C-alpha cells in the first residue's frame, strides 16, 4: 500500500491546486493508494508520519510546496515508522501551483505527477547497507555530530554480487564513471564512497543490470514514464517526456532541477522525469519512451556545461536517436536536447523545445505490414505503442533490441538499413578469415555477445548483435591481428534476427585414436607456425596430445606408482 500526503497549502499557493479533486482521482484511478491532505505539511515535515494510515504503508509519496532542504529528522521518523526513507518520493507541486494556470490545468498536472511518483515509489528497490551514505553538510560541526544530531542519508550505487561479472574481467562501470570512483579490485567492484556523485551513469553502463542505485533504477524510471503517459488526460494533448537532472546543486553547483521543473510547468504536454544526471539516460530509454507513446523526448543537461564533462555524450546520444528516427522515416525533431535555464530566461528557453503537439501531427500513421517480404503467415498488425507486458522491462538493458524491434514493426519498415553512429549503443563485430576459434574474444566479452560453442562436429563462434555494447574489449583479446573488427552500427535487421555465426570450424581427429583434439583452424595455424614440413608440425597436426609421445617412442601413459602385488 502506498500513502500519499499532500500539503494543504497547495490549495492557496499561486493559482492553487484542487486537492480534493486530485485525491478523488488518485483513489479512483490507482489501486492501493491512500491519499491524505495534511495541513501545513511542509512546515511540519518531520512529523508527516503522524498522518500515515494505521496499516503502515510500504511506500510513501509527498506532494509539497517546495523541495525540503533538510530531511534528516524526517528520514528518522519515516525509518521509525517502518518505511525505507530512500524509497520516499517527493513531488514539488508548488512549482505547478504557482506557474501552471488555470487551476484545472494545475490540478491535472498535479495528479499526473503524483501518479508518476506513486509508480516510481512502488518500483523502488529496498536499499541494502551498501547503498546508504551519510551526508554531512559543510556547515555541520563536530559537536553536533557528537551530540547525536539527526543524520541525513542518500543512496549510492552498489553492485549486486550475484549479477556482477567483475570477476570475469568486466569493468564497464569503472570505465564509464566520470569521477573515477569505481574500480575493480580482485574481481570485485569497489566504490570510493566519498568520490561518487551519484550520477547513475554506472547503472545504465552495466550490461548485466548489476549496478543498483535506489531511487534511480531503470525499473523505477520506466514505471514513472509509463504512469505519466498513461495518466495524462486527453486535455493535455500529446505528451512529451523530458529527462532532467535531479540534483539541486549539491554536486553540480546549480539550480538545474528547480529551473527545469519551472520550465516544464509552463509547457503544455511536457512531463518531467528527474534522473540523477541526464548523462545516465541511454539512447534506448529515449527510444523506449517514444515506443511507449511519448510524442517527443527531451534531455535537459546543464546549461553551463556538466561538471562531469558529460554534455558531449548527451548531445551525441540525441544525435544518434535522431539518426535512427530518420532511418525509420520519422521526423527527427521528436528527440531534442534542450537547456535548463536560470530564473531570468525560463519561458523563452522552453519555447525553444517546441510543443509536442506540433510534432505528433507530423508523425506518419503506421503503414501496412509488408507481407510480401516473407512466406510466413502475416504477423499481427503493428501497434501504435508498446502493450503492457512489453512495457514491463522496456528500460532494462536486456530489452534494448526489443524496443528497436518494436519501433521497426510499428513503422512497418523492413527495409531500414544499418545506422552507423559514434554514439550507437550497439556494435557489430565481424570476423575475417583466419579466426582460430580460440575463444579469447568470447571470454573477454562482458556482455555475452560473443559465444563459443563446441558440439560433436566442431566449434562455432556466435555473435548476438542485440547484446553487444560496442565496448571493444574483444579486439585486444584476439591473438590474430586484423581478424576481428568492431563498428558502432545499429543494424536493425541483425538486432531482430538473433545470433549469427561469425566463424565455424570442424574438429580435427587424432589419426591414431580417432579422438577430437583440436579445432581444424587452430591445428592448421599451429602447424603453419611450426613449419609444414617439420616432424613437430606433422605430429601436432595429426595426433592428439596423448598419442604424440607414443608415436616418438615413449611408452603410453600408465600409473606412476603401482601396487607391488
Amino acid at each position: 500500500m502506498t500513502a500519499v500526503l499532500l500539503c494543504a497549502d497547495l490549495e492557496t499557493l499561486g493559482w492553487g491546486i484542487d486537492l480534493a479533486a486530485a485525491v478523488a482521482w488518485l483513489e479512483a484511478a490507482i489501486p492501493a493508494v491512500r491519499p491524505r491532505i495534511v495541513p501545513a505539511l511542509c512546515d511540519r515535515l518531520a512529523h508527516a508520519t503522524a498522518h500515515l494510515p494505521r496499516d503502515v504503508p510500504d511506500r510513501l509519496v509527498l506532494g509539497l510546496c517546495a523541495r525540503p532542504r533538510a530531511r534528516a529528522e524526517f528520514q528518522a521518523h519515516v525509518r521509525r515508522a517502518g518505511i525505507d526513507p530512500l524509497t520516499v518520493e517527493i513531488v514539488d507541486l508548488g512549482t505547478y501551483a504557482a506557474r501552471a494556470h488555470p487551476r484545472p490545468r494545475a490540478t491535472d498536472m498535479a495528479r499526473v505527477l503524483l501518479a508518476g511518483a506513486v509508480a516510481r515509489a512502488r518500483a523502488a528497490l529496498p536499499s541494502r547497507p551498501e547503498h546508504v551514505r551519510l551526508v554531512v553538510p559543510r556547515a555541520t560541526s563536530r559537536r553536533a555530530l557528537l551530540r547525536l544530531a539527526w543524520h541525513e542519508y542518500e543512496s549510492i550505487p552498489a553492485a549486486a554480487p550475484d549479477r556482477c561479472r567483475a570477476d570475469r574481467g568486466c569493468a564497464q562501470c569503472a570505465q564509464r564513471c566520470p569521477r573515477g570512483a569505481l574500480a575493480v579490485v580482485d574481481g570485485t567492484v569497489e566504490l570510493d564512497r566519498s568520490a561518487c556523485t551519484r550520477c547513475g551513469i554506472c547503472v545504465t553502463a552495466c550490461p548485466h543490470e548489476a549496478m543498483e542505485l535506489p531511487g534511480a533504477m531503470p525499473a523505477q524510471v520506466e514505471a514513472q514514464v509509463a504512469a505519466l503517459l498513461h495518466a495524462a488526460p486527453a486535455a493535455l494533448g500529446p505528451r512529451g517526456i523530458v529527462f532532467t537532472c535531479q540534483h539541486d546543486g549539491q554536486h553540480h553547483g546549480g539550480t538545474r532541477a528547480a529551473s527545469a521543473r519551472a520550465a516544464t510547468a509552463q509547457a503544455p504536454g511536457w512531463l518531467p522525469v528527474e534522473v540523477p544526471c541526464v548523462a545516465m539516460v541511454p539512447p534506448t530509454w529515449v527510444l523506449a519512451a517514444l515506443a511507449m507513446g511519448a510524442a517527443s523526448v527531451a534531455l535537459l543537461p546543464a546549461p553551463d556545461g556538466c561538471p562531469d564533462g558529460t554534455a558531449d555524450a548527451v548531445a551525441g546520444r540525441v544525435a544518434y536517436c535522431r539518426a535512427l528516427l530518420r532511418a525509420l522515416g520519422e521526423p527527427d525533431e521528436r528527440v531534442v536536447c534542450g537547456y535548463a535555464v536560470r530564473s531570468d530566461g525560463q519561458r523563452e528557453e522552453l519555447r525553444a523545445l517546441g510543443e509536442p503537439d506540433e510534432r505528433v501531427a507530423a508523425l506518419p500513421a503506421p503503414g501496412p505490414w509488408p507481407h510480401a517480404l516473407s512466406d510466413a503467415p502475416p504477423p499481427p498488425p503493428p501497434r501504435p505503442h508498446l502493450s503492457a507486458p512489453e512495457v514491463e522491462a522496456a528500460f532494462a538493458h536486456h530489452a534494448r533490441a526489443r524496443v528497436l524491434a518494436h519501433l521497426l514493426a510499428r513503422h512497418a519498415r523492413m527495409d531500414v538499413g544499418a545506422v552507423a553512429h559514434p554514439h550507437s549503443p550497439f556494435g557489430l563485430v565481424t570476423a575475417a578469415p583466419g579466426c582460430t576459434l580460440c575463444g579469447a574474444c568470447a571470454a573477454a566479452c562482458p556482455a555475452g555477445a560473443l559465444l563459443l560453442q563446441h558440439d560433436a562436429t566442431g566449434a562455432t563462434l556466435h555473435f548476438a548483435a542485440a547484446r553487444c555494447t560496442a565496448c571493444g574489449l574483444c579486439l585486444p583479446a584476439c591473438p590474430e591481428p586484423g581478424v576481428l573488427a568492431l563498428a558502432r552500427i545499429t543494424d536493425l535487421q541483425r538486432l531482430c534476427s538473433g545470433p549469427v555465426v561469425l566463424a565455424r570450424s570442424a574438429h580435427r581427429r587424432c589419426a591414431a585414436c580417432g579422438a577430437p583434439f583440436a579445432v581444424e583452424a587452430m591445428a592448421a595455424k599451429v602447424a603453419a607456425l611450426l613449419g609444414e614440413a617439420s616432424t613437430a608440425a606433422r605430429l601436432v597436426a595429426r595426433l592428439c596430445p596423448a598419442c604424440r609421445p607414443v608415436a616418438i617412442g615413449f611408452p603410453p601413459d600408465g600409473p606412476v606408482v603401482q601396487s607391488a602385488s
Partner: protein
Amino acid sequence: MPRRLRPARAVRPAPAGPGALAVIRGGFYRLFATLLLYPTAQRLADARAMARALGRHDAVLAGFAFYPQWRRVQAALAQLAPQDARDLRDLQEEFVRLFLVRPAAVPCASAYCGAAAVTWLPASLSRTYAEAGLAPSPAAGEPPDGVAVELEFMAALCETEAAAPDGEHFAILVRERRFLADHLARWFPRFAQCVARAAPAGFYATVTDAALAFVLHDRDLVGALQRLSPP
C-alpha cells in the same frame, strides 16, 4: 601488559555528553562481537543485556541508517527464549554449520583478502592491536583476524575515545578510521554476503546484515568526525 580483548557483560549507559556517540558505537561493536562468537547461554544472556541497554536509546538510534537492521536483531533476540535449551542448541547448530564445519562463511578476515593473507594478516593485526595496547584473549580462542576479535577491537577503541580528554580524540579517530578502511569494512561485506547466501532466513544472516549496516555506517561517521576534528 596489553589489555585483553574479551566481551564485556553490559554496555555502559550513554552519558549525555560528547562521548555519548562513542559509547553507543562501542556498545554495538561489543554486541555484534558477542553474537558472532560460539553461542553459549552466558553469551546470549550478555547479548540480551547489551541489546536492552542499547534499546534504551531507541529514539536516538532511529536517526541512524542501520536502525531497520538493528530492529530485526532486537526481534530475533527477543524470539530466543532465555532458558530454552532447544533454542540454544539450534543456534549452536546453525553456528557450526555456517562457521565451523566446512564453513559456508569463514569468520576470519584472511579468507576474504586474497590467498596470501593467511600468512601475513594475523601477524599484521596482532601488531595493530599491540600498538593500541591490546591483545586477543587466549581464553576466547579466536585468531587475531577473527570477526569477533576485530569487532571487539573497535569496541575497545570506541571506549578509549569516550573516555579520552578533548585533545586526544583526533589520534583515536584516525586509528578507528584506518582500521575500518583497511580491515573490517573491507572484507565484512563479502563475509555477510556468504552468510546471507548460505542461510538467508537464519539468525546469523540477521546479525551479519545488521553488523554490515553498522560497520559501513560507522566508516562514514568516523570519516566525517575525523574531518571535522581539529588535529
